[in-house]
């Protein structure tokens, strides 16, 4: 009798294990999300915190709920600024993700094909930049890209640039792309590496034996097998880039329109928490669509 397990006990334990991530999501995602939704339905006011209505107690809660309105969402559609900012963010995120894939794939492939002993060192090197603050690394790019910065000095020393010629990258969208590709590269490389490392290389040998040229073998075998890594890497990069604020603020010019900066202006310049909450909710909805696609993809693969 000692080796028979109590079936109800084990299913209870199973439920507990399953419940932990749900509980985590409920506390750290759903609860804050509902607070944001609630604020997005209120109106701005000169108060602390600066919006109305506020829930003081249960007795007046219903009155407060009745004051909720969708005005802020209507407002977002009335001013072309917001739609332009969303579209501009999506465009920048899409281009950045494609650049990241183009740069990250060869790196991950090289890592996966390296001798076993070297691989861990290479993974370490990819993670190493995280030891320095992200903010300091982005600041360092200002020093590199500014007109009288390191890159200009290097180009002048190599006589590619004349003594009066200066790089005009800083404060432009190009600088934003450089900053994003640099900052997000590990998030692209690591999932790709994980997928490529698992691959069975005898498949490529078999393809070669059967007369398949290497490039065709790559597209027919390697790439399809690495697809889960490609999808994971792309979403890990695309989703946070859409809401990116720090990089466009530090490296971009005042003309770089991104939803993160628009949200900042609503929150800090207008002190309009309700509209900035509405901007955030819409941003979330825009991002939920790719996340759902991502999850369906994962089920298929």
């Amino acid at each position, binding site marked *: 009798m000692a080796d028979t397990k109590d079936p109800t006990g084990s299913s209870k334990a199973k439920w507990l294990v399953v419940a932990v991530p749900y509980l985590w999501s409920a506390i750290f995602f759903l609860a804050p999300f509902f607070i944001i939704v609630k604020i997005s339905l209120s109106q*701005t006011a000169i108060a602390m*915190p600066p919006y109305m209505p506020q829930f003081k107690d249960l007795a007046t809660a219903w009155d407060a709920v009745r004051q909720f309105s969708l005005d802020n969402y209507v407002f977002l559609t009335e001013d072309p*600024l917001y739609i332009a900012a969303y579209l501009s963010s999506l465009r920048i995120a899409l281009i950045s993700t494609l650049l990241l894939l183009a740069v990250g794939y060869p790196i991950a492939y090289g890592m996966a094909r390296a001798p076993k002993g070297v691989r861990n060192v290479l993974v370490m090197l990819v993670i190493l930049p995280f030891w320095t603050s992200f903010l300091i690394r982005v600041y360092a790019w200002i020093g590199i890209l500014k007109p009288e910065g390191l890159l200009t000095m290097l180009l002048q020393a190599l006589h590619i640039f004349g003594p009066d010629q200066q790089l005009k990258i800083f404060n432009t969208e190009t600088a934003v792309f450089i900053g994003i590709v640099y900052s997000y590269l590990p998030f692209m490389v690591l999932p790709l590496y994980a997928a490529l490392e698992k691959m069975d290389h005898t498949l490529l040998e078999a393809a070669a034996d059967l007369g398949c040229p290497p490039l065709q073998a790559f597209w027919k075998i390697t790439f399809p097998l690495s697809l889960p890594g490609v999808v994971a890497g792309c979403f890990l990069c695309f989703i946070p880039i859409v809401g990116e604020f720090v990089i466009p603020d530090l490296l971009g010019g005042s003309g770089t*329109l991104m939803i993160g900066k628009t949200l900042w*202006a609503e*929150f800090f310049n207008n*002190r*309009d928490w309700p509209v900035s909450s509405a901007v955030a909710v819409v941003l979330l909805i825009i991002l939920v669509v790719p996340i759902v696609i991502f999850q369906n993809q994962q089920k298929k693969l």
Partner: protein
Amino acid sequence: MSKLGLRALGAAAGLTVALISGAQAEDKVVNVFNWSDYIDQSVLDDFTKETGIKVVYDVFDSNDILETKLLAGGTGYDVVVPSAEFLARQIQAGVFQKLDKSKLPNLVNVWPDVAERLAVYDPGNEYAVNYMWGTTGIGYNPDKIKAIDPNAPVDSWKILFDPETVAKFKSCGIYVLDAPEELIPAALNYLGKDPNSKDSADIEAAGELLKSIAPNIQKFNSSEYINALANGDICLAVGYSGDVLQARNRAAEAKNGVTVAYSVPKEGAKLFFDNMAIPADAPHPEEALAFINFILKPEEIAKSSNYVSYANGNLASQKFIDPAILNDKAIFPDAETMKHLYGISPYDPKSQRVLTRVWTSVKTGM
């Protein structure tokens, strides 16, 4: 262990506890949130030496950041320094506690004229004491400007707002404050309208003027122009009087051959007041009052004025201020200039939205 030994141990333990609690009692702090480049560090050292209160000093470069933090509450700051029109709105929102004037004996030193102007925003001067004040005008590099146009109107807003004039200086670099509450009133004033107008059409007209000159502006930023002027990276900036003069001093110290000058445009400029106040939820209100009282000491505030080149709201401090600063009309404007200076009343949420929207449009073209 003998009884004596035990007793000795007990005494030692007691002493240790006494020392620790003593250290805690001494570990008094005041958390100050002030504008960047706005104090002489030695003033903070003197304060700690005299009172034993440690100063945790943090800085901001925009009223917006300060106000957002204050409205969210629980900032942990004990003394904050908002500008007058922001102060007025924050008082209305219930951000501050009234000052216990019995704890501020040095209030006798305040400059009544300044207190009177501040009372427009803080009736009865109940919540705030003026720290420093100044004007928003034009900082420039005389050598670079003259090399381009010897007759450049450096004493007029024309140098920024006249499209033909400003275009001449695009190549040598122009920075402008990233603060619509400074630039929109300046543009309104230049257009001959009331700088204080909250009318949407007026704000939009000012925005159109700013948009027409925006392509000539290298950067909208509220703190980087000090170093940019001092290093000779730019030749023209719209900035706060004291900041421009700090740039002048830094360039002189660095002996890099860069000269910087400041002018209050003849059409008029904004007069601003930055004021010390205590948030209602400040964790150390007693220490905050001690800090404000210390800043009100004539010789201490004079030290900061000498260092940062801003006028202060302390009449008694004037005999400690460097005559070169006291007699500098860019810092202490004369009565004639004062007539052209204007103050700005707070923006209500509706006009604030128009203001920010117009400003976004100026910066991004959207």
